[in-house]
């Protein structure tokens, strides 16, 4: 599944040089690039993302990445979840999703699990989700700072793991992305 692939790619980020064409601290650390195999895919993806009002720019890739397409799409990391969903829906699969960063960035790879007896909480990065083990009902979502968090919480709390929509289908930001990881871990732990 493409979603799994995006998460897998996010876990294998590599570093790139800073072009140094941005403001004080924004640098390139808040941006990322999508690398596709074919230029036509870049063009389709650019059109798709722009039509969804996601600001993107088509750029030439750095030398280290000139293995596939000679164009990459630059976008804001905060919209990664929405970008991934739109591309998934359009069956557009980037070869890589990379943060524009001169230092290695490690996305969350550890989960913190806390057992409250009847309740189980899983935390991924800054997001936590808690389920009632007795009926598999999601009782709380906490953490995170982007505006989709309260919306996601309202959409998930009170529903069982079977009824609840996966956060990736509703979220738009990295907080939503982190919640998806926590949700997947919770589903995995509650499977048996």
């Amino acid at each position, binding site marked *: 599944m493409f979603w799994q692939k995006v998460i897998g790619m996010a876990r294998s980020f590599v570093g790139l040089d800073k072009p140094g064409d941005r*403001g*004080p601290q924004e640098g390139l650390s808040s941006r990322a690039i999508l690398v596709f195999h074919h230029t036509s895919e870049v063009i389709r993806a650019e059109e798709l993302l722009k039509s969804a009002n996601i600001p993107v720019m088509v750029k030439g890739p750095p030398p280290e990445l000139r293995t596939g397409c000679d164009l990459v799409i630059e976008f804001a990391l905060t919209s990664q979840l929405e970008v991934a969903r739109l591309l998934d829906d359009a069956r557009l699969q980037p070869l890589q999703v990379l943060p524009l960063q001169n230092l290695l960035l490690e996305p969350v790879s550890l989960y913190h699990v806390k057992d409250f007896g009847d*309740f189980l909480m899983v935390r991924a990065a800054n997001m936590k989700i808690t389920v009632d083990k007795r009926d598999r009902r999601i009782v*709380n979502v906490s*953490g995170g*700072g*982007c505006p*989709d968090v309260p*919306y996601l919480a309202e959409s998930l709390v009170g529903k069982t793991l079977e009824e609840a929509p996966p956060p990736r289908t509703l979220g738009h930001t990295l907080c939503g992305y982190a919640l998806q990881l926590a949700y997947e871990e919770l589903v995995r732990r509650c499977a048996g």
Partner: protein
Amino acid sequence: MRWLIVGTVPRDDFPLYEGPCRPASGRLQLGVHSVAVKRGTPALLAAACSAAETLGVAPPEVLLAGDIGRGQGSARIYEHLTRSFEFSSVDLMVFHYLQPDVDWHNRVYMAMEEKETWPLLIADAGFMYVAKMSGFAESYDLFTPDVGEMAFLADEEAPHPFYTRGFILQEEERAPELIARAYAHGNAARNLLVKGSCDLVASRDGILERICDPVVEAMEPIGGTGDTLTGLVSALVAAGHSIVRSCALAARANRLMGALADPTPAFSVADLLPSLPQALTRALSEKKP
């Protein structure tokens, strides 16, 4: 003191709203709009209004828009702040769940910079992220991160808590090191209230207060308890307490609120809020150690 809370409501259909905020039967009345108090900015507002009443100060005014994460509501707020907001008319501004956008942040910052007098500035949630990302963190009076967000502030390269290098969960003992690093790189506000198993009040001088009691384990999973803490500290600042004292009192009162409500992890923040007046009154009556 005139104080303003700026944030979002998790609804697509909620318009830009600037005006008073009134608690009503467990909900918030915002002009003609009624909003549920569950978490996020409505939880902050409910706590701030309740605390203001207990403290005998005027309730906050609010600037809100509906946003479910697409950023349109946040953009309406940013635009309003840059085009038609009179920053010198308020004494305290609290920024909360807004879509992080460095460009919009800097436009708001420049609009403030044009004024002779600045309000006190508190930032939490998404706006704290963007205040750090912008490089202007030191212009803020207070950030209220949790321990994970503290690691993000400490990492001068991290664009978001999700990508914080060396993000190791539950390493609260590293908080002093993270705080020092955030200040060393100019990525912290003048004061920090770091939320964790012990809440820490810090500045460039180090950790000033440590609030660890009472311990209410079930508070951690409950969404909105960080929002109520920010609401409490904002109301205390609005009542004239110093920022450091406000942080310590708010942390103590938020914990007492949890202890009084005796929650399970299935509680909502709305179940805790009725205990806030008693908790705050008790925290205020305690002698400063």
